């Protein structure tokens, strides 16, 4: 199994290479000279040339790429054009905030999804099954950023019980584990959870149902096993597929939180990305995308390896 993990890691290298290429190319996809993002249009030519030299824009593209790659691999993601602070620091603090939200949403969505999906699969009454199916359908169909707005309307504007935006009360500088901060977290967490809830509920329901129909379950019943003991076996069987889907969803949560973070002005990586795009702050855009993509790749790798550990049918090594 270690061999499998190593092999997948090795395999990741060319992909990571391609990813870095893509991220590097992002800057050059942008219309116009990258320099024009940094300097005002009426800057004197020597200033423009000096900056070009400083950033290395005057060299041919492949050279630029390798210089950028070399620098990036040392951990220096450049300097933000907007704030002048190192990109790595900005991304790191924003990343922390996103993770908090992602963990909350994951815990909420996955536990609820497992409960709902399993009950739907076990349910004898069609109403329960129908209800759960509808909930999961809603989850995947609703535009989550719109739901976020609706939640704000209902709970902040109309009822005034929850704050409409921000990570904490007025003067807070970061996140802390206390009630005011948790209050700020409630609405974003719910909005962020809907899609994973929908997808995972559907997956859990279908895998558990499929497992229940397998012959070994009938055999266990015949042996006289109690329902709750059988449930353990069923869940173990359904686990590999569900874990894979959960992993994917968790990754999407982290990489795709931008819309929710924008609605709630939650200072996470999504929010950072948003403002970077509008300020044409290309180093932040590159740095954030790179970090998020890298994290996503590692997460997928972990999920794959866990899957091989949990599912004995997959060949290892």
């Amino acid at each position, binding site marked *: 199994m270690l061999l499998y993990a190593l092999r997948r890691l090795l395999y990741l290298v*060319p*992909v*990571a290479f*391609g*990813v870095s*290429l*893509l*991220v590097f190319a*992002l*800057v050059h*996809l*942008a*219309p116009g000279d990258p320099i024009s993002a940094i300097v005002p249009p009426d800057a004197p030519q020597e200033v423009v040339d000096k900056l070009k030299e400083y950033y290395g824009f005057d060299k041919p593209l492949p050279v630029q790429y390798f210089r950028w790659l070399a620098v990036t691999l040392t951990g220096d993601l450049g300097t933000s054009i907007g704030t002048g602070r190192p990109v790595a620091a900005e991304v790191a603090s924003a990343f922390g905030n996103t993770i908090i939200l992602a963990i909350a949403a994951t815990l909420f969505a996955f536990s609820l999804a497992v409960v709902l999906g399993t009950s739907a699969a076990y349910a004898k009454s069609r109403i329960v099954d129908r209800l759960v199916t509808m909930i999961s*359908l*809603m989850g*995947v*169909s*609703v*535009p*989550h*950023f*719109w*739901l976020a*707005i*609706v939640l*704000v*309307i209902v709970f902040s*504007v*109309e009822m005034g019980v929850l704050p409409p935006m921000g990570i904490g009360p007025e003067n807070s500088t970061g996140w802390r584990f206390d009630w005011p901060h948790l209050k700020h977290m409630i609405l974003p967490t719910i909005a962020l959870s809907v*899609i*994973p809830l929908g*997808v995972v509920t559907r*997956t859990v329901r279908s895998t558990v149902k499929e497992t229940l129909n397998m012959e070994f379950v009938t055999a266990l019943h015949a042996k006289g096993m109690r329902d709750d003991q059988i449930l353990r076996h069923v869940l173990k069987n359904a686990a590999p*597929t569900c874990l*894979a*889907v959960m992993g*994917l*969803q968790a*990754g*999407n949560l*982290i*990489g*795709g939180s*931008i*819309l929710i973070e*924008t609605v709630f002005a939650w200072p996470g990586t999504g929010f950072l*990305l*948003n403002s*970077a*795009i*509008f300020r044409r702050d290309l180093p932040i*855009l590159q740095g954030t*995308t790179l970090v*998020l*993509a890298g994290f*996503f*790749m590692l997460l*997928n790798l972990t999920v794959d390896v866990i899957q091989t550990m949990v599912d004995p049918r997959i060949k290892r090594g």
Partner: protein
Amino acid sequence: MAVQSPAVDIAAALVRPTAASASRGYWPSVGRRLRRDPVTLLCVGVLLLVVLASVAAPLLGLADPYKTSMLRRLYPLGSPNHLLGTDELGRDMFARLIYGGRLSLFMGVTPVVCALLVGGMLGITAGFVGGKVNMAIMRVMDVFYAFPSVLLAISLSGAMGAGTENTLLSLTLVFIPPICRVSESVTTQVRGFDFVDAARASGASALTIVRVHVLGNVLGPILVYATSLISVAIILAAGLSFLGLGVKPPEPEWGLMLNTLRQAIYVNPVLAALPGVMIFITSICFNLMSDGLRAAMDVKA
């Protein structure tokens, strides 16, 4: 935004050459089953209504969706002359919602269609030819797969700039890898079946074999998967516009409208939420339709 769902497994299950019980031929039986499915029919009806309304918008005698009026801003629902009120610049909401359907639906469906053509072709080629070609194509796709789809769409759009064409391009690029992956997986499965070997043994050209034997068995699952992506595309397109990366004002588009109406949530909250309702409805309909299509195709003898 779940683009990489276990659709590959679902699609793979559909490739089982299952029968169309008591009926002549596979596609006619699929059509028959679809016609008998009330939920799918309802969704098709609703979508047709929305599509027709938005396509025929100029003929419907609606107010001008671009005409602003500083006086008549944020009128509530049910105002005289303005059934659904007016937006923050005084434009008639009803008209903007219907006109908005044009762009929103277009931006949702077109990228999927384009991705289907490109990704499908690449995937089928990779699956059928196998070997180094397969490796090359799938490794390139892997690079794109390293990004969550929302991130990829936003980074691409962010880099290229706002605008309808850029959004179409970036969304197409986002959807090509998953469609390619599903196509490749399904085609590889079919390729392993004996009847394909028999076709190869008969000395027919690869193109003929793909056309006659492979496509018929492969298009079904690919199409089911692609239709399930349409709702994702609509939401993603709306999301991009919401962030200001998609359609540019003053064009009516549901996502953009949600953005510009945000300031109105304290004044007229229901109005502010209306465009999202449209997105929600179309998204549900496409999802249900896709589910119905899958159920119609997954027949057990």
